[in-house]
């Protein structure tokens, strides 16, 4: 392209002395042309967010600062601007969309007023003209009933609606460039698809350039014109989206692309055995909000409504749903972290519902859980050995033997046997999740319930952990109930899928069948919303 809106030349950003590397960005060069969407994609720690902040002059000074290079925006070097000029630029010619719309909006101000404020600060429009402009903007982002939305507070809107408001604010001054930092990561997959669609549409109609920061290659495939792949603060590869996604030149990009879970459904490896391992019948769980000492209105949420499920021996079932669908509540009921209100949970024919924690203890060796957040699921003050050996020791294994087995488990999950004497903070996110898996396996369970075990991990690490779970499942002959919001992950791991919505299972069956012929409308919308599905489905 001839005349880029933004061009970054050999930008270097230094990190403070105590960091584990010297530069957040090392001689990064890239450009964004007119009406172009450029995706910056990279894993955590690649420096992609730091770059977005550097452009806006929002680096946490004085510790993190630009030490070299230029950022040319509309023929001016941004780095040489004064604070006042920078402030006029931000929100004016350059707008920003953040990851979490709730924190980007002021919770105490009506959203209409928040959009209005942008206009008030940056333009000379009369109040009346501003009001019309706000209405038009809210209309542009396809929010229903704009008048009502304008008079709402952020907490009265859903996550997707809030993100639309943030986009409306970003567009208010017709900026030349929008920097979007993971704008859809905090949203559900169907909402994500809508927001991506909206951003693309608005970008076309307003002729804005977009610098889109993301970690998700599916999102890249949906929205990007060009792609910049970053790693450790350096640009690994740049190019048009089709080239990078289909014929990646750099080895790192090839690995990343290969790690993206495909939508290819997993087939049943073995004939199902006759008696199911886990049977759930008409399970119900209702949360009743406490009315407090002085009464008041109580709120009830029927998180799980009459759910029935069967899980065969040595099989794996994915429970897929969006936030609030009740999938995690169901999982927590099964492992005994929640007390269901009705129905049956039968493990090998034995009733688990209604057991006290004391009575539940013998069954703990059969059911174990892998948790979502590898940073919260390991006690920071215990050594890895203690963490893994806890379960077996409760089941009566001697300390010496439990530690020996823990060492062996660590080796099996790909960590050194010496890790046993170390503390969790010495490990990376992926390694911690391996420890979490080792802990679940320590009592040699028959069933593992995994609650979003890879959603907090980078895509390359995600693939390793999924592969590991798969290997171990076959090796130990385990059954697995896999909770996820991501159909791609579900397809990779599980031969059967159950789709949950509003506390009910709306569809279940073999993965291949559901993918080929979804019956329920919700299943179809979930499948449609998978980011980058066309790219994933067409072999390179």
């Amino acid at each position: 392209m001839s005349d880029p809106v933004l061009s970054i030349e050999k930008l270097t950003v230094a990190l403070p002395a105590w960091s584990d590397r010297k530069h957040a960005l090392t001689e990064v060069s890239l450009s964004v042309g007119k009406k172009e969407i450029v995706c910056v994609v990279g894993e955590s720690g690649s420096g992609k967010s730091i770059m977005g902040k550097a452009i806006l002059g929002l680096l946490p000074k004085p510790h993190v600062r630009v030490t070299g290079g230029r950022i040319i925006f509309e023929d001016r070097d941004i780095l040489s601007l004064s604070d006042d000029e920078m402030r006029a630029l931000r929100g004016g010619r350059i707008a920003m969309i953040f990851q979490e719309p709730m924190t980007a909006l002021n919770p105490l101000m009506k959203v209409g007023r928040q959009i209005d404020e942008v206009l008030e600060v940056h333009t000379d429009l009369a109040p009346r003209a501003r009001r019309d402009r706000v209405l038009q903007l809210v209309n542009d982002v396809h929010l229903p009933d704009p008048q009502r939305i304008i008079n709402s507070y952020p907490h009265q809107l859903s996550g997707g609606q809030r993100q639309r408001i943030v986009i409306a604010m970003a567009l208010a001054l017709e900026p030349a460039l929008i920097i979007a930092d993971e704008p859809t990561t905090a949203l559900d997959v169907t909402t994500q698809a809508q927001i991506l669609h909206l951003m693309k549409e608005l970008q076309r109609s307003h002729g804005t350039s977009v610098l889109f920061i993301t970690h998700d290659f599916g999102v890249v495939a949906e929205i990007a014109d060009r792609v910049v792949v970053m790693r450790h603060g350096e640009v690994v590869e740049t190019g048009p989206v089709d080239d990078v996604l289909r014929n990646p030149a750099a080895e790192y990009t090839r690995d990343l692309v290969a790690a993206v879970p495909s939508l290819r459904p997993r087939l049943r490896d073995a004939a199902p055995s006759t008696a199911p391992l886990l049977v759930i019948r008409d399970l119900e769980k209702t949360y009743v909000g406490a009315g407090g000492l002085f009464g008041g209105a109580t709120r009830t949420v029927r998180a799980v409504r009459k759910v029935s499920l069967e899980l065969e021996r040595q099989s794996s079932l994915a429970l897929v749903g969006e936030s609030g669908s009740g999938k995690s509540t169901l999982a927590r009921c099964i492992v005994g972290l929640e007390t269901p209100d009705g129905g049956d949970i039968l493990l090998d024919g034995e009733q688990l519902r209604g057991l006290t924690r004391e009575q539940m203890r013998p069954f703990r060796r059969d059911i174990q859980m892998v948790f979502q957040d590898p940073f919260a699921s390991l006690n920071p003050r215990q050594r890895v050995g203690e963490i893994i050996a806890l379960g077996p020791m409760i089941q009566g294994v001697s300390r010496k033997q439990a530690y020996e087995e823990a060492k062996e488990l660590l080796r099996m999950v790909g960590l050194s046997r010496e890790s046993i004497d170390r503390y969790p903070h010495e490990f990376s996110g992926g390694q911690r999740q391996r420890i979490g898996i080792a802990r679940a396996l320590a009592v040699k369970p028959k069933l593992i319930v995994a609650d979003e075990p890879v959603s907090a991990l980078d895509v390359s690490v995600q693939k390793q952990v999924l592969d590991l779970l798969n290997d171990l499942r076959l090796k130990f002959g385990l059954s697995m109930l896999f909770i996820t919001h991501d159909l791609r992950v579900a397809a990779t791991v599980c031969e059967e899928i159950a789709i949950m919505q509003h506390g009910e299972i709306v569809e279940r069956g073999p993965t291949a069948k559901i993918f080929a012929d979804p019956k329920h409308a919700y299943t179809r919308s979930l499948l449609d919303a998978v980011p980058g599905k066309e790219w994933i489905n067409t072999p390179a």
Partner: protein
Amino acid sequence: MKSFWQRFLGNPRVMVGLGWVALVVLVSLFADILAPRDPFAIVGTPFLKPGSEFLLGTDSLGRDIFSGLLHGARTTLLIAIVSTLVAVAFGTLVGAVAGYYGGLIDDVLMRTTEFFQTIPSFLFAIVLIAILSPSVANMVTAIAVVSWPPITRVVRAEVLSVKSREFVQAAVVAGQRDSAILLTQVLPNTLSPLIVTGSLLIATAILIESALSFLGLGAPNQMSWGFMIGAGRSFLRDAWWLVTIPGVAILLTVLSINLVGEGLNDALNPRLTDL
């Protein structure tokens, strides 16, 4: 990132505080050797100025102030530390149980805690001593009874936030008992704010102890800083050193403990400082 000890000991205010606290601890440990005579013994002429025959002078009855200062440090520190330990132990127990079990237990325990918090603590301590009669054990009891509620609040808040973390759920899934989960999983993760609050509590306990002794409600036959101030207060115009010397000792000790406590806080919660 510097380690905890580097951040703690690298702080000049902490070093000043620790220096004075260490001095006070040492002289109170070796009071019998440094000033072998009974601090209540009359050793010379009353109202001798500091620097004369006795290093810090004598009081209205001719007692050695230096000896009183050392033995007083022992009494004051002993009562302050023991009462703080009792308050921390009791407050932690109540706070941990309230935070972990929640619901009705939490309501009952916290309303009780609030009951103790609403009574002005110094008046309450006076009433307790008046009822129980002055003695070292009763001083410890009275100070502990008025100072455990803040500990309970801190521990409860921490337990509430820690107990929802996934590693606690993992312990439940592993089949660990509640008492074991509280002791091995939850409480170790509440230590840093507890240490900070506890260390600052010692300073408060010294002040209460001194105030009680000043009023003559201190342990009988135990020299203490507050008692020295109380005994010398009527001679403030004629013999300033009777009140000033123990007063400065209290001031410096409380200040030092606060410096150390805040240094602990900065070192344990490094995000609060500028790294």
